[in-house]
């Protein structure tokens, strides 16, 4: 066993007087209680939205994609905008659970479970758009690589749209596996303290017979690390491939090499904003302020200002290159149809929401203000929605042929479809918040003695020691020599 030490200058990740049992109690008891009135209200509204979305989609499938305001010039509109927006939102969950795990950011333990859930629901919402954009959805399986019935003609492996099929489905599967493998031990905790038979039965099934055996934990940790290692390039690849949908084309405003990393940064940016929106509500409603602390929100706000600025740099790079390239089409797209022109307003909404407003987070006071964070999280998501709208529509609405120029506004089934995905997302999220441990119980326990407020008080004794004294103390304390240096490792 190693000395559990962390600088006392670091904020505790778990506030209050906690022991292992208290952690279980705090996180699991909301599952065992009846949901409050607010939950029912929220759930009902979500169901209504979902129903309206289902109606809009049925309308579209019945009458054909013609009911959407797409035409020959603007072939992609709200549908693909929403697709990219939802996929992007999903990225924060994977980032928190995978990349921050590799970077050993302790604060991820408070938010990873909910963020991963958000990822899965967001990807589910995203998937709807390309599927229903096909119009004849019963033919959707045509995108899968199988030799079709008119001879062995296959899908086009050169097409970025097909890469998307692989990317999104892999992403969904791997995220689901990652999330569920983390949930298994926590379900076992719910099962073993369950008082009702039904709960014992259901959580018993869901926990796959988990006991907490040391060997199983060892494998579980190896699995989590490798899945994190796999998910890290995976999350990059997914939005990269989404950006390829545009960047492999030769449409001015779409074909630019910076798209992959810039899309990824934007995705993380909007994803963190959505995590903030959700968790500010969750921590309040479920009384989890001691686990999702101001420190957690501040850390996420730092990620938001970082990624927002990266995105800002990319916008400026694009704008500069549109001039520097000395290609007239590129120049016109950016300077005449994007920053100006009938849809120019959307460009400035994007710039304001994504680049200018997030700069408030350079200030600690703002990062630690719940109201500011909440408002900003919504502004960022509006901004990121407009980013996709700007990329898609302002590149398309001015065709090479001026007679094809047009303007685009959505029809009601398009808006309804978008609202429906909100319904789907929140319906899932409400169910998750009620029936699942919204914080990873086991992971909180494993950082409790390093980062819990009451345990950190015990570390003050070390702070005055010089490095030499501290090191000497370490070796002196170490009675268990065989365990020294033998932390559970998994290679990655």
């Amino acid at each position, binding site marked *: 066993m190693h000395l559990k030490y962390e600088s006392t200058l670091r904020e505790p990740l778990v506030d209050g007087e906690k022991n292992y049992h208290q952690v279980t109690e705090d996180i699991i008891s909301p599952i065992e209680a009846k949901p409050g009135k607010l939950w029912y209200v929220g759930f009902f509204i979500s169901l209504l939205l979902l129903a309206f979305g289902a109606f809009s989609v049925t309308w579209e499938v019945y009458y054909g994609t013609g009911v959407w305001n797409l035409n020959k010039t603007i072939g992609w509109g709200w549908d693909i905008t929403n697709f990219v927006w939802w996929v992007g939102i999903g990225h924060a969950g994977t980032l928190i659970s995978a990349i921050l795990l590799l970077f050993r950011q302790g604060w991820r333990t408070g938010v990873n479970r909910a963020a991963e859930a958000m990822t899965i629901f967001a990807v589910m919402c995203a998937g709807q758009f390309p599927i229903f954009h096909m119009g004849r959805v019963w033919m959707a399986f045509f995108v899968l690589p199988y030799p079709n019935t008119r001879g062995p003609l296959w899908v086009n492996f050169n097409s970025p749209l097909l890469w998307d099929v692989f990317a999104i489905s892999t992403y969904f599967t791997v995220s689901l596996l990652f999330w569920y493998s983390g949930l298994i031990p926590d379900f076992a905790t719910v099962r073993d303290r369950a008082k009702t038979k039904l709960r014992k039965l259901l959580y018993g099934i869901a926990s796959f*017979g988990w006991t907490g055996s040391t060997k199983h934990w*060892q494998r579980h940790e190896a*699995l989590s690390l490798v899945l994190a290692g796999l998910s890290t390039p995976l999350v990059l*690849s997914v939005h990269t491939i989404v950006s390829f949908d545009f960047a492999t084309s030769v449409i001015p405003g779409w074909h630019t090499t910076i798209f992959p990393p810039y899309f990824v940064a934007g995705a993380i940016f909007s994803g963190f904003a959505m995590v903030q929106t959700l968790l500010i509500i969750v921590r309040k409603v479920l009384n989890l302020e001691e686990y999702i602390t101001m420190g957690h929100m501040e850390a996420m706000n730092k990620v938001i200002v970082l990624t927002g600025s990266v995105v800002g740099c990319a916008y400026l790079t694009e704008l500069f290159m549109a001039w520097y390239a000395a290609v007239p089409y590129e120049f016109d797209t950016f300077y005449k149809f994007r920053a100006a022109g009938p849809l120019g307003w959307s460009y400035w909404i994007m710039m304001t929401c994504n680049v200018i407003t997030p700069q408030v987070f350079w200030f600690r006071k703002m990062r630690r203000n719940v109201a500011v964070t909440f408002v900003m999280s919504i502004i960022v998501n509006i901004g990121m929605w407009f980013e996709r709208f700007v990329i898609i529509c302002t590149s398309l609405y001015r065709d090479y042929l001026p007679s094809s120029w047009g303007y685009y506004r959505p029809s009601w089934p398009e808006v309804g479809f978008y609202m429906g995905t909100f319904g789907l997302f929140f319906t899932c999220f409400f169910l998750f918040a009620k029936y699942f441990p919204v914080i990873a119980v086991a992971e909180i*326990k494993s950082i409790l003695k390093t980062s819990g407020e009451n345990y950190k008080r015990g570390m003050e004794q070390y702070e005055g020691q010089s490095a030499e004294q501290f090191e000497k103390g370490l070796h002196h304390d170490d009675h268990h020599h065989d365990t020294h240096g033998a932390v559970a490792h998994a290679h990655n």
Partner: protein
Amino acid sequence: MAVKNFVVASFDDEAVLFPAVKKVRTAGYKIHDVYTPFPVHGLDHALGLRETSLHTAGFIYGITGTTTALSCMSWVFNSDWPLNIGGKPHFPLPAFIPITFELTVLFSAVGMVLTFCYLCQLMPFVKKHIFHPRQTDDLFVMAIEVTPKTNAEELKAFLASVGGQQINEQKAEAGWWYGRYDREDRLFEQKAGTVNA
């Protein structure tokens, strides 16, 4: 496996658990397992468990995915139905990279999770004996198998001396079986129905 006798002790602190594990092992007792509510770093080594090879399996699954993707796509484009798509070559390697990468990750992740579930015998409807209901909450529960050579009373006293609490003897199935957690299965009376691990 089979139904066996165990002496079970609980510990409420890792700082007590680690020395206890060491003492129990030096005393020559064979620890069946230690159940913990969260992964305790270093406990696997303290128990003398070997490193898992799960990552190696993951690597092999990954390579399988890479090969599958590359060979399938090039077979389709070169021999099954060669097409000229936008003047691109029949083996457009850069265009194959995204799908190849995705399948590598997919094969590796799915394969590893299945292997993990297989090795740990995890599946819906699988049931195992829980020595202490708080082993998934806040206790570290050590189970030691009672063999014909073991003096159970001596062992209990020894465990108490190294800091164990709530020490008791349990007769339990050491493996897994199909069952429901809302029912008490009396396995040692119907050994024939036991599914062996």
